[in-house]
């Protein structure tokens, strides 16, 4: 039996995809903030890629200075609200909380962070503004966590900023790729609107930059160009039958889900291929959409999955079943997906090998491939002198984000190969400073 009945209304969708970290009320925030020990040189700060002064903002919440708390958060991380909700806090700040060593529940840092930032977003209180105009302009490609963070920081430094976004909404994967039970579209977009109102950068939606000619225009018009382009489509597996109807990429599936919610149909029996966090999300989401059976198929052993343990637990909690040491060989079916032909594998000395003659077909009516996203190498190759590493990632200076083409700077997934929102936000802030240093020479 399915864990969830298929949602047919917005209300049902919201119930099936109830927020894992709902926003706290004032009382809860007071209680939770009261527990913080105010550690010296706190481990949570060190565990935060954006270095938010966590004990400080928690202390501010505790003393009733929620606005000050929001300022502390945003000074370090422009995606403060989103990060409070979507960060894998279990392995970052909350995982570093000293309470863990005492077998006491760590402070719910993420939820406290969202509490303070939600409050200023809702009130619209102005905390920041653009710096004095310095007459220089920067083009930002991509309105994701990297692009928007760079835009905010550049505006605060006095640059004119135009952001070019291929899609219709800002925040990148925050609104197109994160599981709906981690953050709602409304929350995501409210923070984007708040930031734009504060800093006043321009965002051009549905404005993909994809040709050399378009890049040339930007190169002519702007003093620097920031690449926050993220990753591309789901990797092709190169399997026979991959083009069958109802065989889709996880990134595409989730983007569809975030935009069309309960109107997205899922199979009755879904097989998700992959062992990363996106695979866990896709599996959970299928289950919450009412799939009767969801199987997570991974080519190595359970312990070798890249996904965080809590993400797998989350999937298991909604009825997802794991199928390990199996590699897909073929997507079967006649037009529509009817099953996946697997071959069993074994891991020896860290190497996976297939066990000859162990093929079997697992029937299903939907396949979601969560096998990583492709790099946008084709586009990146349009930039003269831009060097990529062996994995297709942009090579850039670790402190300034400057690429091998001095006019181009990068941050986020296109640079780090695919990480969290908080990584992109933190990197972009640094890179914006790098642009400033470069243009101030």
């Amino acid at each position, binding site marked *: 039996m399915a864990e969830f009945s298929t949602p047919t209304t917005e209300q049902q969708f919201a119930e099936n995809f109830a927020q894992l970290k709902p926003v706290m009320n004032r009382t809860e925030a007071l209680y939770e903030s009261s527990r913080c020990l105010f550690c010296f040189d706190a481990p949570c*700060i060190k565990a935060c890629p954006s270095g938010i002064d966590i004990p400080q903002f928690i202390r501010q919440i505790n003393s009733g200075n929620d606005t000050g708390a929001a300022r502390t958060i945003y000074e370090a991380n422009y995606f403060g609200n989103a990060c409070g909700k979507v960060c894998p806090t279990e392995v970052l700040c909350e995982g570093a909380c000293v309470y863990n060593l005492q077998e006491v529940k760590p402070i719910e840092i993420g939820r406290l962070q969202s509490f303070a930032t939600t409050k200023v977003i809702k009130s619209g209180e102005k905390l920041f503004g653009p710096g004095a105009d310095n007459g220089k302009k920067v083009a930002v490609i991509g309105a994701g966590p990297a692009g928007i963070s760079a835009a905010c920081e550049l505006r605060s430094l006095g640059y004119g900023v135009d952001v070019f976004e291929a899609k219709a909404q800002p925040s990148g994967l925050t609104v197109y790729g994160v599981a709906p039970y981690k953050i709602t579209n409304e929350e995501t977009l409210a923070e984007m609107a708040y930031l734009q109102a504060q800093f006043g950068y321009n965002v051009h939606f549905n404005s993909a930059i994809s040709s050399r000619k378009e890049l040339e225009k930007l190169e002519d018009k702007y003093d620097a160009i920031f690449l926050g382009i993220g990753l591309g489509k789901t990797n092709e597996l190169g399997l026979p039958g991959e083009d069958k109807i109802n065989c889709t990429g996880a990134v595409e599936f989730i983007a569809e889900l975030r935009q069309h919610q309960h109107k997205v149909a899922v199979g009755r029996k879904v097989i998700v291929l992959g062992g990363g966090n996106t695979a866990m999300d896709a599996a959970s989401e299928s289950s919450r959409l009412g799939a009767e059976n969801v199987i997570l198929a991974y080519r190595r052993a359970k312990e070798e999955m890249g996904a965080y343990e809590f993400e797998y637990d989350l999937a298991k909690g909604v009825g997802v079943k794991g199928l390990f040491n199996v590699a897909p060989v073929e997507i079967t079916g006649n037009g529509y997906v009817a099953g996946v032909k697997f071959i069993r594998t074994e891991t020896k000395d860290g190497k996976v090998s297939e066990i000859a003659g162990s093929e079997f077909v697992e029937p299903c009516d939907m396949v979601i491939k969560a096998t990583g996203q492709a790099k946008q190498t084709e586009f990146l190759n349009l930039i003269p002198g831009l060097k990529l590493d062996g994995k297709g990632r942009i090579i850039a200076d670790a402190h300034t984000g400057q690429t091998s083409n001095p006019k181009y700077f990068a941050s986020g997934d296109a640079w780090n190969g695919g990480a969290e929102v908080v990584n992109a936000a933190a990197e972009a802030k640094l890179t914006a400073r790098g642009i400033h240093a470069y243009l101030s020479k």
Partner: protein
Amino acid sequence: MPDLSINFAGIKSPNPFWLASAPPTNSGYQVMKAFDAGWGGAVWKTLGVPVVNVSSRYGGVNYRDKRLVGFNNIELISDRPLSHNLREIEEVKKRFPNHAVIASLMVQSRQEWHDIVRQSQDAGADGFELNFGCPHGMCERGMGSAVGQEPKVLQMIVEWVMEVAQKPVIVKLTPNISDITEPAMAARRGGADAISLINTIQSIVGVDLDKFAPYPIVDGKGTNGGYCGPAVKPIALNMVKNCAQHPDIKLPISGIGGIENWRDAVEHILLGASSVQVCTAVMHFGFGIIREMTSGLEQYMVEKGFQTIDEMVGKALPNVLHWEDLNMKYKVTANINEDKCIGCQLCYTACEDGAHQAIRLNAGTRVPEIIEENCVGCNLCSLVCPVEQCITMEQTDSGTEHLTWKERTEAGTAPTEFEDEKAGGRHHWVPEPSAALGKERHKTLPGKARIINGETTVPAEA
């Protein structure tokens, strides 16, 4: 089973827990409910000429998420007609003959005192408590703490009361005085049978940051009130001790101030109280807290082998000395239990900034290290440590030597000059002032600047 019953200056009650004279004893309804719940006695809300109260009467002090660690009130004595109170006292006594019902009284003239004592006596009160403590409102009218702060007036009124009282008389003392033993001795001279303390402390519990007015606010204004609740216990304990130790007082003491559970009660008893009174905790949690109080007290008595309350009274008094009589040869040093340490480093920063720079941090571990030669044994680190029994104070002296300040002074070995060689801190290492620079400054920078300064590294790869 230990016997919890007491005979306090002739007033008997099944246990030492009395409700203090306050809102919880405003009516027969409340007192009967309390006795039903398990309270041993009640000091009735002060009788006198009925008052008129203001609206908005209480203010609270919250600490983080804990409500009412301190409490104050600007309420006055009973606003109910005397006859109503007396009728209800009679009814309660009929129903609960073995419980203590004490009439708290506050009037002005000798005649009024005589009248009200007689009438309360006739109603069946087991004793009287003279309210010389109320620090607001009533004192402006020459009563309450206005009396308690004038030992001569206090003594005179006690004498008036003793002229007619046939039941034990307790004098309730105000803490709003520099030496609590002065009014206590006056009570003794006047012939009182017992004292109770402390009444509330003059206070302003807080200021409304928007209305610029003190709490509790009455039409945009406020006044000083009487402070009570858990926060006042340390002040009460010290005053109870002062009265209990004073050779010229020697009266039974009813301990009041910050009693919320059995531990608080036992502390009062160990310092000399032979009954205890509770108000704020009941106003916060209701009469039901008595069950925990009696059960805790009983358990403690079983564990310690006490049969009666009397055996416990004043048990800690021999160990409360003057500072000059403490053994200066005794030495404790902090010890961090590495297995228990969770690495919050509160001990480090407390010792660094608030004490004697006797804790250091070492690379590669979050467990701080005690610099033994710098540790003065102040306890601070063990007090801030959030983990039970993680930092312990271990005795490091031989335990065979004994020398007090008094002895040093008498022997002429105490420092007497500004540059005295015998100064206690003379050979204690203190860092150079400029060594402090740069240790905290970077923390005043926002997150982005911290990152740029390399505190947090941005992963180049996922």
